[in-house]
């Protein structure tokens, strides 16, 4: 893993909205923390031990946007947004059923009590209602993908 790949990885993590990512492969261990979502220092920390010439990590997406110094800038931007997080572990669905449109899209205005998504776990389907009113700024998780407890799902601009 070279320095370029690490840079890309940091950008990707910052962009994803995750607040902390730990990666462990054979001899490499990386922890990336972003202050991007509502918390603490806003600093990006990397810890790693690189054995020389370690090949690795094919899958870093080309998604990283051309935002240098992403974490610091993002933080101030995201501060005014509210993050809606997953109350449970499960699978995130943006639609009520596969042939229906999504509950919400970026740019939609939502009210308290509107259904934002469904999270399914063990055949229990949970409609997640919004506790806030505002405008959807970002959808942070892809349709039909697994989500963890407390994982950020949406960014909402309450203003």
């Amino acid at each position, binding site marked *: 893993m070279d320095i370029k790949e690490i840079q890309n990885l940091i950008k990707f993590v910052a962009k994803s909205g995750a607040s902390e990512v730990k990666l462990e492969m054979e001899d490499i261990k990386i922890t990336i923390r972003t202050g991007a979502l509502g918390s603490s220092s806003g600093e990006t920390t990397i810890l790693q031990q690189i054995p020389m010439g370690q090949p690795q990590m094919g899958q870093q997406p080309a998604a990283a946007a051309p935002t240098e110094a992403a974490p610091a800038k993002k933080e101030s931007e995201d501060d005014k947004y509210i993050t809606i997080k997953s*109350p449970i572990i499960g699978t995130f669905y943006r639609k009520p059923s596969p042939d229906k449109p999504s509950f919400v899209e970026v740019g939609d205005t939502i009210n308290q009590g509107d259904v934002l998504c469904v999270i399914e776990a063990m055949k229990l389907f949970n409609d997640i209602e919004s506790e806030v009113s505002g405008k959807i700024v970002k959808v942070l998780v892809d349709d039909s993908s697994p989500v963890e407890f407390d994982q950020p799902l949406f960014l909402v601009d309450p203003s």
Partner: protein
Amino acid sequence: MQIIKLNATDSTNAYLKQLLPDNALEDFAVVVAEEQLKGRGQMGTKWISDSGKNLTFSVLKKGESLRVANQFALNMCTSLAIYEALSALGVPNLSVKWPNDILSANSKICGILIENILLGSKIKTSIIGIGLNVNQTSFYNLPDVSSLRLEMGVTFDLDEVLKLIIAKLRKYLTKEFLSHTAELTSKYEKIMFRIDKPSTFKDKEGNYFMGFIKGVSPSGKLIVMLEDQLLQEYDLKEIQLMY
């Protein structure tokens, strides 16, 4: 008892859900349809039923302010209620196949699909969808499916069966059961299909392995004992029981 009867609807769960905002429905209000045009199993899978022969219905359960972390309790209570209702009818060899299919011997006779409406970390409302095969005798090419009629040889009055199940749901979907998770779990585990029996499973990668079902975790995962007494928890998507 508040019962809304429909000739046909896409899905009784969807119908009930759509009534929620402006209608003053009672706790345990029921929507029952002769025919479900778009009955659902899990996301995207279908529940198929001949018109007028089976029970396809949804029950409204208003929140007992159950924490969403304990949502599997709803699954267990519903399974226990149906199990007890069908036992009372004399259906043989009943068990609950994790997480919530009701079997007679090796054949599925009933499926459950629960939808919750969450506000924050609390369950505000639950809609409990139940599909029970009652008087249907032919299931085309579906394997491992049966009905009360096939198992018992007699025709049942759908309304009677429905009333019995609702009565049991009223018994189990209460604070008393929902909030005493440990007792509830041990009650549920006692009626689990293949509990403590050597069983074959298939994992996500399609590999087969052997294990013993030991129970369910608080979040509803299946606990399987593997070789060397190792206990492993599995999500619904990570494991398939072969039988």
